[in-house]
């Protein structure tokens, strides 16, 4: 018996990893009937099920000779192997026997009589088990007039319904509500790995940690991503700093003169040649970026003034007016703004039209990609109106959420006062005055709230108008109204939808209370 069980465990013990089984699948076959097997586990089971003589119909097929063979095979291959694994697995098997033994869960055991017997029995039969006992000192003693501890049950506890202690919390329950198991350690704490299975009540079962946690698992890769990005950006950044330094030097060369307007391109080029490595002309036959062949007249070689390397003029490098470059360069928050103030832009335009700087594609991206991006950031317009509408609406909504609950409370107070006055009670004059003031305040509050609602309503109507107009244009396949894009229309629709549902929800409250 033990031998067969061990056999059942063999594929789980790691000699055969799950990956191996799909590939190894074809090669496995039963040594007795040559039936193909998917993995060792199935083979073992197959041997257990088909080639034992329990089943008379099968044993006829096998015949006595084969049967003997099987027994031999079984002895040499399996039992021996099981014996060699003995110390590790047999102890596990013993634990398993206890776990499998559901006897003492299903027998309705009262705390006093049958339970101790059944547990001790199972212990005796499995000597390999650790002798740790789960304490019973916390068990509530039945008083003869007990009810199931579960609030929703409260059933009377007797022989029929059962009188069972939850092994974890110790309270008394009926059979139905202790049909659960939980693993606890000696301190009665839930311990999924080290603990021991004990019978428990439904409350202890469903209050297990994580039992009701249905938060989907998520993995944050931000750090990994940032590290990857940092690794790549770092080398880039160094190169960019070098290029920016050169550019600043060139600007200084031009601007720090007494008379910048006299500077011409060849002077700049000569200066550049002093500060960078100027690639020699005959080194290259093709543009290193686009691989086009250089010629004598067309496709001439040009030097990038920032890296000094040779590029073609056909998309890989460009002559850019210095004033434009400087403007772009200075816009970045990284450079000091004072510079701009000292040199009014009007002067710059006049002066630097003549001077220009050739920059290649790579250097442009290194130095200006971020700058160009930040410049474009604030360029679109129509969307700003929509965004400020959203912000405005949010403020109004917040206001209403602040005002409305207080107003409703006041109204309730008014109603109680009303009912009081209806019952013909003569109120002292002072209270009457208070009432008047209270009423006045109420009207004011109402007015305040209504005015906010009106503002929201106005916005909603305005939006609806634009949406409808543009929708008709869309349906006629005409271009949208000036300054309007599909995306903006979508956003407008969203805002309108939100407003409509907000008004519907909250105006009603107000009407109810009017």
């Amino acid at each position, binding site marked *: 018996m033990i031998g067969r069980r061990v056999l059942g465990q063999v594929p789980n013990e790691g000699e055969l990893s*799950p990956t191996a089984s799909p590939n190894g699948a074809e090669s496995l076959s039963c040594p007795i009937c040559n039936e193909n097997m998917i993995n060792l586990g199935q083979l073992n089971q197959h041997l257990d099920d088909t080639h034992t003589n329990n089943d008379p119909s099968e044993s006829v097929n096998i015949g006595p000779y084969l049967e003997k063979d099987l027994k031999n095979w079984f002895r040499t291959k399996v039992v021996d192997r099981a014996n060699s694994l003995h110390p590790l697995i047999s102890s596990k098997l013993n634990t398993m026997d206890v776990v499998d033994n559901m006897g003492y869960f299903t027998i309705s055991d009262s705390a006093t009589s049958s339970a101790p017997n059944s547990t001790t029995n199972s212990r005796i039969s499995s000597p390999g088990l650790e002798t740790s006992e789960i304490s019973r000192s916390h068990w509530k003693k039945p008083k003869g007039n007990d009810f199931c501890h579960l609030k929703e049950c409260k059933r009377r506890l007797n022989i029929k319904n059962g009188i069972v202690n939850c092994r974890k919390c110790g309270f008394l329950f009926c059979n139905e509500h202790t049909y659960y198991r939980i693993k606890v350690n000696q301190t009665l704490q839930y311990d999924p790995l080290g603990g021991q299975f004990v019978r428990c009540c439904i409350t202890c079962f469903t209050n297990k940690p994580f039992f009701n946690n249905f938060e989907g698992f998520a993995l944050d890769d931000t750090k990994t991503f940032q590290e990857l990005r940092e690794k790549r950006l770092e080398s880039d950044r160094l190169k960019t700093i070098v290029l920016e330094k050169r550019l600043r030097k060139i600007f200084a060369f031009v601007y720090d003169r007494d008379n910048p307007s006299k500077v011409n391109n060849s002077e700049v080029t000569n200066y550049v040649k002093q500060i960078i490595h100027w690639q020699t002309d005959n080194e290259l036959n093709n543009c290193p970026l686009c691989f086009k062949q250089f010629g004598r007249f067309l496709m001439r070689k040009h030097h990038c003034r920032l890296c000094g390397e040779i590029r073609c003029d056909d998309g890989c490098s460009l002559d850019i007016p210095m004033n434009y470059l400087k403007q772009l360069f200075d816009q970045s928050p990284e450079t000091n703004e004072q510079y701009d103030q000292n040199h009014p832009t009007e002067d710059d335009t006049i002066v630097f039209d003549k001077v220009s700087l050739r920059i290649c594609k790579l250097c442009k991206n290194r130095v200006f990609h971020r700058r160009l991006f930040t410049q474009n950031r604030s360029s679109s317009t129509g969307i700003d109106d929509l965004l400020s509408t959203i912000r405005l609406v949010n403020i109004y909504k917040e206001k209403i959420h602040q005002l409305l609950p207080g107003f409703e409370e006041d109204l309730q107070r008014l109603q109680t006062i009303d009912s009081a006055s209806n019952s013909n009670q003569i109120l002292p004059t002072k209270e009457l005055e208070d009432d008047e003031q209270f009423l006045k305040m109420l009207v004011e509050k109402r007015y305040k709230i209504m005015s906010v609602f009106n503002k929201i309503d106005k916005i909603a109507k305005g939006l609806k108008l634009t949406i409808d107009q543009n929708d008709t244009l869309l349906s006629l396949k005409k271009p949208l109204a000036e300054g309007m894009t599909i995306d903006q229309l979508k956003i407008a629709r969203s805002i309108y939808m939100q407003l409509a*549902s907000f008004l519907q929800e909250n105006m009603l409250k107000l009407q109810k209370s009017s």
Partner: protein
Amino acid sequence: MDLVKVGQSYVDKIVTDTGIKVLLLDDITSSIISLVSTQSELLNHQVYLIDKLENENRDTIKQLDCVCFLSVSEKTINLLVEELGAPKYKSYKLYFNNVVPNSFLERLAERDDLEMVDKVMELFLDYDILNKNLFSFKQLNIFNSIDAWNQQQFLLTLASLKSLCFSLQTNPIIRYESNSRMCSKLASDLSYEFGQSSKIMEKFPVNDIPPVLLILDRKNDPITPLLNPWTYQSMVHELLGIFNNTVDLTGTPSDLPPDLIKLVLNPSQDPFYAQSLYLNFGDLSDSIKTYVNEYKEKTVKHNSNELTDLNDMKHFLESFPEFKKLSNNISKHMGLITELDRKINENHLWQVSELEQSIAVNDNHNADLQELEKLLTSQEFKIANNLKVKLVCLYAIRYELHPNNQLPKMLSILLQQGVPEFEINTVNRMLKYSGSTKRLNDDSESSIFNQATNNLLQGFKQSHENDNIYMQHIPRLERVISKLVKNKLPTAHYPTLINDFLKKQRPVSDLNGARLQDIIIFFVGGVTYEEARIINNFNLVNKSTRIVIGGTTVHNTNSFMTQVLELE
């Protein structure tokens, strides 16, 4: 286990950051997210613009933050790399719906020199959540040939199933049906991947009773998808078709207003549907009657003669939106039920279903044969071709080994009745796919044709309507689960795979506990709404075991027969 809660927790993660934002999706994720959230819910989280990543005509809106919820594929990564090179929005938060390979992360990081990305997260939502215990991968054509995967679909299934287990924070023991090569391949590859994912697995909470994933093959129970179901959700899918929780009524003869053509059937948004989706047709009619009466009671008060009182009018105005919602919902379900009723009468489904049940449940060859012949040739009941083929399929499977099997005769009757030959082929394909030699004979005492047996678990017993002749058949799944829950599925027919990580984590003896707690069931070749109903009933009664079920797709008879027909 509640899949809807899982889905919503993911949506919360995606949109939770404050501020006005854009949500970018792709084809796959937009259908996933539409099943667990609505536009107004997203709007409450300030998502003012929802668009697809592949839409090139998006405006540049540098004022807005952007959150992306994207599937993991070569295509989306390419699009994303492009997007990051020329960013359209202020910042990007990237959420992926499955495991992201490191090479993808590297490519994105390389391109993000403007440092636009402030967050990258892997969420594990690579599957459709249809209701709280039903999921689907929406895959058809998973076969390369009989019992062999189409490689591409296999990888998708593997990834989706992995994401499902991850999302539920489970590292399950895997069991599968030994007679199916498809199941065994899926099980072993999955087990291997779990064993390799120790970085993720070690973050999961450890449970005292380890969860189990059971992988089943549709071929072991071809009967359930062939029978006409009689509960609401199943019927709608059988007769009208539910896709992404939406029913399309285009082309029905009844005149429907345009807003009642495409109906969303989502139990988490529609209280009446949540209440009645598992009701049988009789109870359903009662249920809708009370629903209508409730509505009438509320509105009658507001009829002109009773609306004299100012207070009444006020009350009516107050609850007007509620009324409108209610009346919309009523007309939606009324429309659906009328349409179902029409289909039932048009196709004589009462008669057809009676025969179906008789074939599936009773062992009475001669009577069934007679009745079948009668229905196939009847002038009185004109039955659609696909129903005729289906009936013969049922007959063929049921009486395949019967000595007096008259299948050739039935096939020739079909031909005489003008059923196209390629449709008739379904019968033979069905036998090839799921004949008696192909099915798992794990249970001598109860075949797939039996009625309820006594050893079913509590919860199943209650769900049976044995007195209802249209619902006598009990899907095989019930018996499988009854054994599985008690951990008594024979390992010979349902081998067990325990991945390397689990083996390291806990002693093997632990993995042999008795009653199971969390179970995931996956049908290779498609699940049915009827089986989902069974699971729901089971979950309602059994507090100690929780099951979610799903499949490569959710079948009705037509989609199942098409799948079988396209096998070769």
